[in-house]
């Protein structure tokens, strides 16, 4: 986590120094989506070569997926309440 934050701070510094180049935000947005694709491919490699996940998926996968979906639903529902009443811009 700290390594990641340090790298981001370096990015902020570089972005600040280059702030007068108007093309930067569009470039960053475009480049990052392609690197996200690459990240997912590599995450796939890591899952596909992980015997703990691959060998147990049939037996324990369903339970894992169920708890993941339930957790996301609970968090999203509460975040919607927070957003609706405290964050949403009033018209």
């Amino acid at each position, binding site marked *: 986590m700290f390594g990641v934050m340090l790298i981001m701070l370096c990015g902020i510094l570089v972005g600040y120094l280059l702030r007068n180049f108007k093309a930067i935000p569009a470039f960053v947005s475009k480049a990052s989506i392609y690197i996200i694709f690459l990240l997912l491919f590599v995450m796939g490699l890591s899952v596909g070569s992980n015997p703990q996940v691959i060998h147990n998926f049939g037996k324990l996968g369903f*339970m894992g997926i169920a708890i*993941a979906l339930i957790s996301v639903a609970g968090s999203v529902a509460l975040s919607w309440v927070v957003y609706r009443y405290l964050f949403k811009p009033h018209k």
Partner: protein
Amino acid sequence: MKNSLVILLCFITGVILAYQGIIPTYDSSLELYILYALMFLVGIGIGSDLSSLSSPIKKYRFKIILVPLATIVGTIAACALFAIFCPLGLRETIAVGCGFGYYSLSAILLNELAGADIGTIALICNLCRELFTLLTIPLLARYCGKLAPIAAAGATSIDTTLPLISHTLGEKYVVIAIFHGVVVDMSVPLLIALLYL
């Protein structure tokens, strides 16, 4: 929507290639370097418009603490409800959910504390949370409020899902996502330790 499909396709291609042994030597530090590249780009985006860092803090102040709180309470409440139908039991179900997508840590902790089966479920569950969030960030942002992608991301809102959150919601939400990620990240070992006192 198109991005989500490409993301899913990239992930599945990776799984198949590694599973079939077509890419035999996989170096796990590669993932970290790609993440670094992404975080550098997110940083550049913020740096080119520094007000995106300060304006949300000025605007929302203490309300920001409610975002990670909603994520944590929402997950625990939903898991507690689900435990009624779940053969794992209340404590195990909540403990698995409390990984908040931080699969490496929660799987290691629960392997130790609750045995290999629960550890493996935690690994799969939290991997799925991360993957599911990456796939649905645009949909969540459109239909469930701007905070929904951050809440779904859980602990990953500070690393793997942050670039896509920034891409979808804009730089203004990055500072909220970072704060959320730090708090939820730290809550993972704390909550799991409390559950297994």
